[in-house]
């Protein structure tokens, strides 16, 4: 196991971005080639980490831990476990596919540079095990997304970009205050020198219960905006609608996961007691998101806005899974993060392809496309059914595990949330009917079907949709040790935490305390 791989996965797209941006000359084609190469190499690196990943190890792997700014106890501490692994791989794969599928309308050079910055930053967020490093990456990703929306978007792109930026900045600002408060209170309580190290703080958490709850809320504010949770979600439909297709794909596929991932890693792991205390609030907001997002999606006239609201519903499921604190619901939540990246990413690609051909996203102006573009219709159908949660496709596995697990600890929330599957069928099938069924007229009748490169980009996503639906085991078994570890951690830290009877870890299960010390520590499989 080479820890360098993870650092490379962050460095390669970053260097790629520099090459694209600063190596002069050439037209868009060379920028595209460099971007494709850099992102594809990153994809290969992440996949090789997936293959190299020690399935039986609950701790962090591919760990690098080097002191960076010793005065403040900041270190370059990165590593991944079964929780972050698949988000890193998703980020590694979704970018090259997006680059293959979509070409920008203008200014390819900066476009590709920003995309690569976004890829590096996103992997950085998922890998960071130091609060400072995490915060830096968390903020860095805002800039390229802001630029992509503002520079290559449509319609009211500036409004959407600014709204996106300011909204997330407000959340992040609260988190920054929270981080500073946390490290100083922790240092005061333990008497140790100040440290930003996530693992060190989480494994020896000394901050008072009351303070921890407040600090948790400041983190939660940042994550809730990012997810986005009801009622702080309205930036999302605007950002999605006005963003260029690549922006929407990445925004839905990767960036929304920064919030849900944040809740797992910096919510549940760092503040188990506070997370547990506030769980009813977040469960409720999650369930509202599921039903409300779906209901509002039903009424949308713009296809992209519809998919955006469907994201809010899907992310609601993930929040439900996270705050239900069971092995099943957490595994389902992580599974669903990846599913949502795949299926919503694919949906946005398809909507982008329709827009490129028809120059409209208004549902009322489309119709009968199944006749003119049967292959696209077929692909759309599979992706739609995955999003609806049809068993046999990936979406079901995540949704089912979330609801199953939640039924154990948050019964009535789960029962209500399960009704969300009815609404999901309603808005997606209705949209499909209006766009693809019926008689094709005018430009709809002559719309071109999928191009080869488009099919090439969608094929891996389709393959994953089917594969993960039929054989999710390889993914579930890789995340299971880390998830069990997390649940055991919560159990240790939260006095009144009652997991459902069926979900006690096996007798021989022993929680792994991730290694903390050492200049370069490697997570070793035991």
């Amino acid at each position, binding site marked *: 196991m080479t820890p360098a791989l993870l650092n490379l996965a962050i460095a390669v797209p970053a260097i790629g971005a520099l090459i694209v941006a600063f190596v002069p000359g050439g037209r868009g084609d060379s920028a595209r080639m460099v971007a494709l190469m850099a992102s594809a190499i990153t994809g290969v690196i992440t996949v090789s980490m997936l293959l190299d990943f020690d399935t039986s190890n609950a701790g962090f792997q591919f760990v690098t831990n080097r002191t960076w700014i010793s005065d403040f106890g900041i270190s370059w501490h990165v590593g991944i476990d079964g929780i972050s692994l698949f988000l890193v791989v998703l980020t590694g794969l979704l970018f090259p596919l997006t680059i293959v599928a979509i070409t920008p309308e203008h200014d390819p050079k900066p476009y590709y540079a920003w995309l690569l910055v976004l890829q590096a930053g996103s992997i950085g967020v998922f890998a960071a095990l130091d609060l400072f490093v995490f915060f830096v990456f968390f903020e860095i990703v805002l800039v390229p997304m802001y630029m992509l929306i503002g520079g290559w978007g449509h319609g009211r792109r500036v409004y959407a970009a600014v709204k996106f930026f300011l909204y997330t900045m407000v959340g992040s600002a609260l988190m920054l205050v929270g981080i500073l408060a946390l490290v100083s209170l922790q240092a005061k309580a333990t008497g140790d020198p100040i440290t930003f190290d996530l693992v060190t703080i989480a494994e020896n958490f000394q901050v008072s219960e009351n303070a921890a709850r407040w600090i948790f809320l400041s983190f939660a504010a940042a994550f809730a905006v990012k997810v986005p949770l009801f009622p702080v979600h309205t930036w999302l439909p605007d950002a999605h609608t006005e963003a260029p297709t690549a922006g929407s794909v990445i925004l839905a596929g990767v960036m929304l996961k920064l919030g849900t991932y944040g809740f797992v890693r910096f919510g549940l792991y760092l503040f188990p007691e506070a997370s547990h205390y506030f769980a009813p609030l977040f469960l409720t907001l999650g369930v509202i998101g599921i039903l409300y997002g779906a209901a509002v999606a039903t009424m949308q006239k713009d296809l992209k806005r519809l998919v955006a609201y469907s994201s809010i519903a899907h992310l609601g499921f993930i929040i439900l899974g996270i705050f239900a604190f069971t092995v099943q619901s957490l595994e389902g939540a992580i599974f669903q993060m990846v599913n949502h990246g795949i299926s919503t990413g694919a949906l946005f690609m398809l909507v982008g392809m329709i827009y490129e051909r028809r120059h409209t996203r208004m549902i009322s102006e489309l119709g009968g496309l199944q006749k003119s573009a049967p292959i696209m219709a077929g692909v759309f159908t599979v992706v739609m059914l995955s999003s609806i949660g049809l068993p046999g496709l990936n979406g079901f596995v995540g949704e089912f595990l979330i609801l199953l697990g939640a039924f154990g600890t948050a019964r009535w929330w789960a029962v209500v949330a399960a009704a969300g599957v009815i609404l999901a069928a309603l808005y997606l099938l209705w949209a499909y009917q209006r766009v693809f069924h019926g*008689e094709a007229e005018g430009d709809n009748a002559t719309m071109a079907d999928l191009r080869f490169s488009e099919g090439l980009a969608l094929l891996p996503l389709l393959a994953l949709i089917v594969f993960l639906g039929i054989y999710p085991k390889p993914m579930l078994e890789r995340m299971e040790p880390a998830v069990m570890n997390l649940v055991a951690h919560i159990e240790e830290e939260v006095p009144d935490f009652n997991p459902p009877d069926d979900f006690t870890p096996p007798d021989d299960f022993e929680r792994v305390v991730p290694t903390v010390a050492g200049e370069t520590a490697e997570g070793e499989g035991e």
Partner: protein
Amino acid sequence: MSLTSLLAFTEAPAEIVTSPVDDLVFLIPLFPLLGFVALLIGGRKLGEPMAGWLATAACGGAFAMTLVVFAELVSRDYTQRSINQTLFEWVPAGEFSVDIGFLADPLSIAMALFITGVGTLIHLYSIGYMHGDVNFSKFFLYLNLFVAAMLLLILGDNLLLTFLGWEGVGACSYFLISFWFTKDANATAGKKAFVTNRIGDWGFMVGIFATFFTFGTINYVDLTDGAMEGVAQSTITAISVLFFIGAIGKSAQLPLYVWLPDAMAGPTPVSALIHAATMVTSGVYLMTRLNPFLAASADWVPSMIAWVGVGTALFAATIAVAQNDIKKVLAYSTVSQLGYMFLAVGVGAYTGAIFHMITHAFFKALLFLGSGSVIHGMHDEQDMRKMGGLKKFMPITAATFIVGWLAIAGVPPFSGFWSKDEILVFAWNENPGLYVVGLITALLTAFYMSRQVFMTFFGEPRFAHSGSEAAHGVEGHGEAGEMAEVGAGGAAGELAESSAGGAGTALATTSAAVATMDADPGDGDHADHHGDDHAHAGDPHESPWTMFVPLIVLSIAAIVAGGLNLPFTKDLHFLEHWLEPVIHENEAKLGFKGGTKWVLALIAIAAGAIGMMAAAAVYLKGRVDPAKIELPVLAKGWGLDAAFSSFMGGPGRWLFAFLAWFDANVIDGIVNGTAALTSGGGSLLRRFQTGYLRNYAFGLSIGAIATVAYFISRTAL
């Protein structure tokens, strides 16, 4: 992946029997699944008719494989008739784990036999019926996928795999209802079927959760009568109700039946296979499979199931009386017959439920295929008021249809009589009230089916059939339209108009749109095929052999299937003995002697006879004006469907619209209001709005880099 297999016994395990067949159960669903994959890859290249033959062979392979497994089970001792094959672990998460595993036991194999058998016949029939359709291979692709999903539903050894099949058949049903997607009514019907089913699926899903948390397993082998001991009755009651909600969605019972009549928008073989013989019986299967739950529930649960069943049976039968679309009659009839099956489940006559499911699969598939043959022969006419006297033109179709009619009407010795009588006997045993409602339904069934047969095949032709040469001169592609001209005496469009508006109340928009589509000469889909073959045909004609052979086979089955479970002596209760390992002691016992059974049977025969004679009086002899019977309220299905639609289109839609408005104005309004306040005070936001995007981001990047540089310079590296 390794194929492990183990035998599980529901009874005390004696010596373990193994055989090579243990590892072959998975082949049953695999054949149609492979057919699906092959058609997905090469269907278009194969084209017509090879794609159809491939699909038929795939389904036939499944049937052959089912026979092999059936023979193996028969050869075994009674207690060991169960093969449990596990392919691989599907969803493992913590303590929860389910496999892709199959349970071949008397119940699942009995169903697999008629599903694959009837399925193969319907595949064969479709080769003729779908001839000339532009999406010929796609049709068979869906059909094979459907059969595979249906087999997973019944052969799955756990609730989750059943749920996979359950939703899989739902998806195929959606694809096939909206198969002719260019017409909006078809697309709407498909969507309605899926969404309505999803309401039931909510119950199924929550039922799975509750089962897992109560029993720690969702595997059928473990969910036995013994497992129910020590569990609170209220819990089991709740679980039973949840699964029942799932069942009424899929099996179209009150109040979730509304999707099934609309589902007739699909091609007729689909109606026969999915919306009559197989998929819609899934709910009955689920209830039978979970008989230990029902037995351990509070008593009101089986009673509720029985009353919902018999209520649906009567309700749908009254509606069927006033339908004029040949398929709509059969659709409501299906809803009604499914009601009988739920009545059977509710009164503990599980054997009766499965018995009726099997006989119904034969005679209802027969009737639907027969109606398809009529529609085909009549050049896409579905309105029975424009038929009549067809037995002269389509003798084979007429003869087989009449067999189906006698079977469903409960005329001995046709199969439907035996299975319906068994249910009615057990209903009497449980509650005479249930029996009376069931009996009235039987009378109505005989009436509306006789009405259909008389209107279609007897009497004088009500279409303008030509002995002359006029119709022979018709040429080329516009045949469907031309036929409409001949038939309705007007332009192609008029047929649609007359179906939709003419005499009016009976036909819902769906069937009107079907008529529109099929009569449209310019349409590229199904209507096309008449152009080539029947350019010479003016009169209704008999269907090709691929279509009438299945009719003949099914009619034989519809005659003799009663032999599965004849009531005379214990030795003749083959089906009951066969199913005993699955149902155990939960089958109700009759509390009266054989004499009562005879009396009940005679009453049932009399009810059927009265129904048939009444129909003859009205529709053959014309003694009563049909309008006095076909009341508009019945034609409209008591207005229930319309009420649901107007609720969804009214208050339901208003709520969603309100939420969308609320989101755009209130929630987002607060956000923008806050932003506006801030920008009023500060100059920062104004700078954003002048459009210096790049400058701003550039500054931000520089700042970030400078910060990072500062920290790097201070590192301890």
